[in-house]
């Protein structure tokens, strides 16, 4: 855990570690972390034993739930999430693919009813060969992960 020293330690908050290098920026944006107005420390292209290079994000005072953590699994497979309270790791999540992704992004089908109605987007997740497929609960269309990544 020598890497921890590369970015200032936080007292209470969440550390997203082992993010594949280059994905850190996308995660900041996707999780709308900036909007929280909490202190965020990021490290890009840090040395990593397994990945060669990795990104790392620390968000103060935000305690990720398992569900929130799983939303990240789509975009940063292999990342680990440490939830820290008073300098102690309270929860540690290894990323696993979620069964369902809710409210994380809009349905890519522009004619899907979910856009204009008071509901959250809702996708079931399925691993298919080397791809991850997301199927909208409403329009029943399936999308490759790569399509929603660029939204």
């Amino acid at each position: 855990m020598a890497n921890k020293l590369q970015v200032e330690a936080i007292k209470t908050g969440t550390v997203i570690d082992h993010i594949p290098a280059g994905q850190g920026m996308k995660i900041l944006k996707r999780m709308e972390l900036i909007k929280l107005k909490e202190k965020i420390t990021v490290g890009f292209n840090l040395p990593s034993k397994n990945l060669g290079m990795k990104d790392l994000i620390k968000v103060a005072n935000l305690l990720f739930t398992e569900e929130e953590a799983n939303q990240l699994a789509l975009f940063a497979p292999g990342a680990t999430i440490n939830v820290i309270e008073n300098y102690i790791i309270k929860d540690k999540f290894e990323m696993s693919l979620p069964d369902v992704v809710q409210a994380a992004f809009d349905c890519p089908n522009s004619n899907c009813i979910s856009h204009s109605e008071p509901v959250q987007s809702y996708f079931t997740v399925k691993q298919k060969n080397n791809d991850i497929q997301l199927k909208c609960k409403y329009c029943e269309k399936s999308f490759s992960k790569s399509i929603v990544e660029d939204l």
Partner: protein
Amino acid sequence: MANPLYQKHIISIPDFSRQEMELIVETAAELKSNPNPGLLQGKVIASCFFEASTRTRLSFETAIQRLGGSFIGFDNGANTSLAKKGETLADSVQVIASYVDAFVMRHPQEGAARLASEFSSVPVINAGDGSNQHPTQTLLDLFSIYECQKKLDGLNIAFVGDLKYGRTVHSLTQALSAFDCRFAFIAPDALGMPEYITDELDEKNIHHRRFDTIEEAVPEADIIYMTRVQKERFDETEFKHMAAKYILTLDTLKGARDNLKILHPLPRVDEIAVAVDKTPYAYYFEQAQNGVYAREALLALVLNEQI
């Protein structure tokens, strides 16, 4: 014990079990031979067509009245004050559903029926949501196949024409895959069966193959399901050259099995030669009539604990 469809929403074919589809088909057959004008007595059903679809609407409204029910609604949402006032579908559904015993709806956007089911206090019946699902078309197709073949299991089904955009074809394939059928697909390269459907078949280990011509599929086929290849999808010369291959004529049908029946969701343009209408293979007009019985069966099951 209540029938398994009592008070259920009817949204999408993959929601149905094999047993539920069999129940609908058997109930449709029963209602066709023994009309029962009391099954919807005293029931009021909303028939809300946010997008016009004359055939489907007339078929539903006939079914409702043949079973002794009555209906309220509209035939084109664009003409209603709902559209003009910009109310969400969720709000419209909550209000209308509070007046009625079931809510039949057609809508131009995909997912509308599923959304409505989350806001409705009564069963929602999907009469078509954009390019997504049209389950009652599939159920009437299933009923027609059952009626003319006396079974649903183990049949050879050939689909011809536009297999890419035809939602009826996708849903019917999904439905029949619960019955151990074998599939032949005959379509222009640009309009082949989508991969997600063939993947589903592969997952279930269901036999399917592509043919270049209808003739190749005819000798084995129990059902030929024709669809229209739309001109708009091709340039004119390309279309003329290609469309001829996907037209069914008397010649095409040489060597057919005696039990072969031809289905078509209608309207047809010229993809089935008129001469075929007089052969014992033609079943598309019976199929259209069966729409009323399939919808009667569905409404009767959804609104009666036991029938």
